[in-house]
């Protein structure tokens, strides 16, 4: 580890804005509890578990929870603002046209995929909410201040600990697991609603040994969806933040060499914004496919 030692001097000179949420400097790591062993002299530290910035009625309140609450407030406020401006008699404004075409497009696509107006009417609000919420939650990381504003917390021993006030909600596994659970419960609900208790026959079928094992595999793959849905979103967003951090440190190193600022992080951030849309769309679409799978009866 001799080479990173010389680089770590460069890292220390970085401005405070350079630390992205999800990946922070050395202050945090000692108390984060995620690093069982020492990581040598490398200055790039990644915080896996979000910081707790306070308590709320006795429960720990993490920075991702604060950011996701802000996203919710923004979405609800936007909904009220757009809803108040809607006219059915006068000339519609730009916002109304944008949201009407968005909602209309998604509704049309859903009707085409599900092929059933009644199920579309039930599933539409949840699917579009998942999409818009995850999209805004992914894009909020690129607002300056998210991940760079820090608060200092006093510990018992007179020590100080630097915490980050905001962090992208989907860079927290708890958040994505909660979203996956919402999607999972909704899919099962739709299955029971359309097929009644016959829906259980997909998983517990004792008519023949082959059907029994097919049902067992179906059950396992149903539960594995929770893992794949939550880790897909988390992995993409968390890895995206680490890549942005690497680009920023690379920029600092290159600046040390040639004294010319080179905008490495800009294309990477653009790419990550594209990933944000894609992952939001994938999450909503997979929920839609699972609803379709659960609502169409199996023909064995």
């Amino acid at each position: 580890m001799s080479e990173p030692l010389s680089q770590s001097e460069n890292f220390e000179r970085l401005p405070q804005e350079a630390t992205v949420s999800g990946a922070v400097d050395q202050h945090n790591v000692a108390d984060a509890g995620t690093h069982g062993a020492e990581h040598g002299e490398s200055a790039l530290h990644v915080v896996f578990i979000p910081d707790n910035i306070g308590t709320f009625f006795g429960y720990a309140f993490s920075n991702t929870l604060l950011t996701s609450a802000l996203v919710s407030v923004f979405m609800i406020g936007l909904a009220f603002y757009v809803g108040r401006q809607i006219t059915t008699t006068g000339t519609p404004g730009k916002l109304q046209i944008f949201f009407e075409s968005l909602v209309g497009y998604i509704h049309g696509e859903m009707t085409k995929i599900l092929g059933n107006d009644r199920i579309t009417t039930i599933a539409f609000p949840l699917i579009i909410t998942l999409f818009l919420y995850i999209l805004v939650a992914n894009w909020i990381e690129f607002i300056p201040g998210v991940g760079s504003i820090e608060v200092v917390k006093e510990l018992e021993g007179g020590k100080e600990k630097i915490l980050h006030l905001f962090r992208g909600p989907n860079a927290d596994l708890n958040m994505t697991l909660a979203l996956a659970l919402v999607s999972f419960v909704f899919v099962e609900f739709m299955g029971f609603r359309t097929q009644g208790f016959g829906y259980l026959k997909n998983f517990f079928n004792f008519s023949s040994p082959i059907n029994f094992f097919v049902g067992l595999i179906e059950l396992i793959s149903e539960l594995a969806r929770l893992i794949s849905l939550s880790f897909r979103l988390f992995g993409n967003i968390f890895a995206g933040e680490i890549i942005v951090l690497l680009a920023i440190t690379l920029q600092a190193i290159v600046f040390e060499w040639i004294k010319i600022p080179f905008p490495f992080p800009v294309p990477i951030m653009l790419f990550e914004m594209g990933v944000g849309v894609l992952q939001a769309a994938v999450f909503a679409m997979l929920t839609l496919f699972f609803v379709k799978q659960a609502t169409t009866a199996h023909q064995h």
Partner: protein
Amino acid sequence: MDPQVLAPETFKLLGAGLAIGLGAIGPAIGIGLAAAKAFEAMGRNPEAADNIRTNMILAFALAEALGIFAFVVSILLIFVV
């Protein structure tokens, strides 16, 4: 040899890198094949492009799930073990 090189930490990090590196090969091949065939099908039958695209994304998700399991193992090796 430097005893630092043979520390358990070394093999943990090596295992994490190998887990995600090797684990990404399979899904990459699978997604590539699925996309190639789907685009071929769209070229032959443009009317069915919408239907093919949605099924293609579903196939991506199923192939990608294995890559995600490799990612989980790698994360577990770095942060938990």
